[in-house]
């Protein structure tokens, strides 16, 4: 579910970066207040653990394909939401830098989509459904529902961000109808895997899970707000998807004052394409020049 730089406009990417930076700042402040030195190495090593866990694949029942853990919900269950969000952010930053997964401009989107929803919507839902000392069946159902909700919201955000950027030609409704069912399946699997890991840990070393139980503060209230937002988003999305597939594009074009993407007039083709014959020739030349420049600047290896 990684967003890629290639599909993102700077306006959307920048907006999401600001939203993510604000959440990072808020989480950092919450963690500083709690001032628990012991958690600092734990968070770091759990981030590395998530990488390691993602290197191991499991088989998805009934499909013959295999998948790996997303991990946002698992981290929130182990560490609480604020620390989990920061760990998720750090994992995605390393992925973007070392593996070019997603990209730098898309970092804001990816951290928000994959970190915010599991930590601040999925996890409160899990706590609410599972209670303080859940049996294994109840915990599994709670984890599944929490993972499904997080992934549905994440997938919906991906669709919104992609369509608002206007690089992909996928219509809003089509994209949504493609993304949501896939992420329903992924959410069920993610929930089952999270529950499997948590139930193993609970059986083998129950102390770990009890350290993260936090006092309930306005939990029901926060949950209510999030559910309302989720339902409103879902409702608006469904309305757009069913009545007017291009409604969002149209409204975004109106809002931003950008020219509408569809306006086929033969006269402006050259301007829009920006790649008339001269452009193609010039582009090729610059590429060759760039390579020559690289060759000329190349440092001689020292003896």
């Amino acid at each position, binding site marked *: 579910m990684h967003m890629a730089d290639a599909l993102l406009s700077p306006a959307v990417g920048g907006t999401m970066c600001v939203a993510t930076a604000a959440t990072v700042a808020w989480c950092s402040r919450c963690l500083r207040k709690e001032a628990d030195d012991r958690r600092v190495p734990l968070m770091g090593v759990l981030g590395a653990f998530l990488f390691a866990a993602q290197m191991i694949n499991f088989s998805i029942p009934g499909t013959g394909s295999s998948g790996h853990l997303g991990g946002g919900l698992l981290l929130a269950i182990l560490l609480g939401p604020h620390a989990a969000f920061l760990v998720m952010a750090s994992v995605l930053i390393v992925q973007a830098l070392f593996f070019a997964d997603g990209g730098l401009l898309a970092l804001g989107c990816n951290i928000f989509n994959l970190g915010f929803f599991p930590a601040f919507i999925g996890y409160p839902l899990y706590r609410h459904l599972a209670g303080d000392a859940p049996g294994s069946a109840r915990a599994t159902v709670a984890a599944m529902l929490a993972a499904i909700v997080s992934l549905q919201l994440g997938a919906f955000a991906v669709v919104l961000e992609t369509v608002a950027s206007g690089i992909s*030609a996928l219509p809003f409704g089509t994209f949504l109808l493609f993304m949501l069912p896939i992420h329903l399946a992924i959410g069920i699997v993610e929930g089952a895997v999270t529950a499997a890991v948590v139930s193993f840990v609970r059986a083998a070393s129950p102390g770990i899970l009890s350290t993260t139980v936090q006092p309930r503060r306005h939990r029901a209230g926060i949950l209510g707000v999030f559910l309302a937002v989720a339902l409103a988003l879902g409702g608006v999305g469904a309305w757009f998807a069913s009545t007017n597939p291009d409604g969002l594009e149209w409204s975004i074009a109106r809002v931003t004052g950008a020219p509408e993407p569809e306006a086929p007039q033969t006269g402006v083709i050259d301007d829009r394409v920006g790649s008339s014959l001269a452009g193609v020739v010039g582009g090729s030349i610059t590429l060759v020049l760039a390579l020559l420049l690289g060759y000329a600047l190349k440092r001689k290896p020292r003896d």
Partner: protein
Amino acid sequence: MSATAAITGLLDFRRLDLLATGNSALHRLDPRAHVTVTLVFVVCAMSFGRYTVAPLLPFFVFPIAVVAMAGLPVAFLARKVAIVLPIALLIGLPNPLFDRESLLSLGGIEITGGWISLLSIALRALLAAAAAIVLVAVTGFPAICGALERMGMPRPLAVQLLFLYRYLAVLGEEAVRMTAAREQRGGDRPLSIRLYGTLVGRLLLRTWDRAERIYLAMCARGFTGDFRSGRAARFGVPEVGYVAGWCLFFLLLRTSDVTHWLGAAVLGAVQ
């Protein structure tokens, strides 16, 4: 991922990480200069419209020039960047299907907007990947974290990134050992979810114990919740020049159609 594939990933990670230990003029610049230039580069290159192809090409000058000036291994980095191409083509594939309006005619063959935007997406993906990989190769991850922190990133996230980075390979190797042990006993089929829970749960318990040991070891050395780096950073004249030069170059590419002029000039000279 099989054990071998995982090992390759870890080795690549290490090799990329070691590149930053080079000692070219670029390596010696303050990391903030590299981070700033990379961010401006990404924003400029990604801000073109859906059908832009030719004006993206001159942006390749930046990664190529940095790789050359810093003496980085071209083939290795090119391979790392090229990995993104299949994914980019996959996410761009809907464009030719949905956008069938003809935009260009080359030698009698009509080319639809979808194919042009697919090409544009592929180029963007390569540019974005090159920017990220080259940044790590010339700066190094700890230095990037330091730069981001001095540019306003909250301290807990900076500490978190440094910790994650230090233990990535350690736990990666742990996972490789577990995978290899299982493959040698029970074939290489993917695990069932229940077994995965047991295996990864075991890994989690080891991780937890390790965190406890690390914490005690760090306490013994006077850890107070922060990392300290001894390096003094200086954003001097070379840094200002480097940042200003590249930013002006990117703005020029973004605001004027350099490729068009160049192409027109060459075509004019030929005729």
